[in-house]
């Protein structure tokens, strides 16, 4: 039975997926991860995609972030088809509009907390002074003002995730894609992280798409989906943010 996958939010459509499919070939065998996803996301929404590990959530966020190409279908971001963009243009899009928070934070291990955040601001023509000011402010706001010179290995998991959030927020993106942002955190730290993530949504109208395997306060989302067998199953609107 076909599930109706397309859920169109009301208002300003910001991100849209049409019949999005993605498959990988492993040992000559085709593995279909995404099987025709239709989704429209409005500006300022918090969309939560829940699902079991291996359901395809990370792949879906990867395609939305331009980190990998879909096999079929299209992703339209701010009216532009992402499949028409070159690798260079996708990189620029990630630099200016879309930020990704990874499941395992993906901090550069030999770079300090300061340098990890600064990495997002290099090569954009920002002066060193302005860059330093911005990085320090971000890390101070996330309670890491004293840990600027620490390597990721010298930080707790929660602190590492906060560094990753600071890096994500550095470029003031319009869309944040967060892949299991609280997956390995205790409840108290997870709550802090969620607060840090939804603050830009409330204050600046940033759009947030979060993938989670369930340990996430689902009540913060404007819309909730469940990913099953490579398709999105709407679970309804929980709270209008």
């Amino acid at each position, binding site marked *: 039975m076909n599930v109706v996958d397309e859920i169109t939010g009301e208002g300003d459509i910001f991100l849209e997926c049409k019949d999005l499919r993605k498959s990988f070939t492993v040992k000559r065998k085709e593995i279909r991860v995404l099987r025709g996803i239709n989704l429209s996301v409005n500006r300022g929404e918090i969309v939560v995609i829940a699902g079991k590990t291996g359901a395809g959530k990370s792949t879906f966020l990867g395609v939305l972030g331009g*980190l990998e190409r879909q096999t079929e279908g299209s992703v339209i971001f701010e009216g532009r088809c992402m499949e028409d963009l070159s690798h260079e243009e996708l*990189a620029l899009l*990630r630099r200016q509009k879309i*930020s990704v928070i*990874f499941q395992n934070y*993906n901090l550069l291990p*030999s770079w300090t907390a300061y340098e990890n955040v600064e990495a997002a601001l290099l090569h954009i023509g920002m002066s*060193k002074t302005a860059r330093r000011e911005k990085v320090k402010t971000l890390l101070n706001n996330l309670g890491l003002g004293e840990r600027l010179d620490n390597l990721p290995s010298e930080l707790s998991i929660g602190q590492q995730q906060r560094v990753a959030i600071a890096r994500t927020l550095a470029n003031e993106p319009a869309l944040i894609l967060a892949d299991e942002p609280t997956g390995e955190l205790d409840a108290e730290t997870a709550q802090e992280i969620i607060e840090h993530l939804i603050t830009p949504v409330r204050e600046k109208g940033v759009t947030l798409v979060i993938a989670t395997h369930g340990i996430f306060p689902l009540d913060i989302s404007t819309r909730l989906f469940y990913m099953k067998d490579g398709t999105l199953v709407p679970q309804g609107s929980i709270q209008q943010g």
Partner: protein
Amino acid sequence: MRDLWECAWRELKRRKGRTLTNIFGYLLAAAIMVVVVGALLYSKEATSSILNRVGTRFIAFVPAHIPSCPECSAKSPDEESEGFVAYGVATNLITNITNFVDKVKKLDTVYDASGYLLFRFKDQKDGHLFTVGGFDPDDFVVSKTCCAAKDIVKGRFLLPNDRGVVILEKAYAKLKKLKEGDEVTIAGSMFSVIGIVKPPIRPAKAEIYMHFDEAEQVINKRMGASSIHNEANVILIEVKSSKVQDEAITSMKNLLPGDYLVASSYACYRPAAKVMGINEDAAWLLTIIIGICAVILALKSQLSSVLERRRDIGILKAIGWTDGNVVSQILAESVLQAMIGGILGCLVAVAILLFVPIEMLSGIEAGAHIIISPWVLVLGFVLAFLGGIIAGSFPAFIAARQRPADALRSI
């Protein structure tokens, strides 16, 4: 741009071991190259200075068996024993010698030239044959092809205003038991011996040397009616370098069309110059091989570094670094190492060239000295810089080709 270099420097500091290895590789290559080129220039100067003792001069003449030479005087020597000679061969005279020598002097390859009279007389008393060389003692080329003041073993050398005086070749003086202050008679004219010379191997040696005009007078006295004026049977030539001697000979022969001129020089300069060339080529080859090895080493190291940092590069791309940013970053790291290695290599090379007695170690005592040319240092640095670009290009290309999702997924 400043971000790029700062970031590259930071990355190099993070990987100290690898960075120091690469810098050391470039240092070694640049230092060896500068030292080899420095030693090569020294060797070149030293061997040239040795070779120049034999390889930069020759004499030219028209053999008497070429009667049809239009610019040659018909006055051929006495068929029996007296006459104009060079290398034991009877010669013709070249007319209007002043004009011809001027033309020779204007050749690009020629340093100096002069007309020379070399006439063989027969001693009327004892029948001994002896040669008289007439030259202008002011001409530089005379000191290189006939005899020079430094060859004097007794007495003094001819001065420009001297008249009625001669200098004798030592062996002739010994044979004739003549010494400084004695008098000799040539074609009925008396000359005082003012010096005895013992020149080394020279192409225009004679037994008795005198001023050109006086030689002309005694020859005319002997030849009677067939007097000569502004003619000479030999041209003395000093070329600018032993390497252009063949070119100079060809150019000079072209001044007298018809292939009448015969040039005679020492046969040893050719193999010597060739050996010099072989050494030079070998040194260049060695330098190139060392340079290539350094670049391959750095390339391998840089490539390993890129592969080790595959995840980091994937993360940087995921947060918005473009392929261009990644390429610039890898290249900047490679070039920075090469520049540091190049500068340090040049400094080490200067220290080696200054403090290691290469002159002594080479065993060549030619009065030449090690010269540290700024151009060689610039060359060492530029080659290290280019090496850095070459070594960084392939790894940068590999890094740029990585797709962020693949790099992150592979972890």
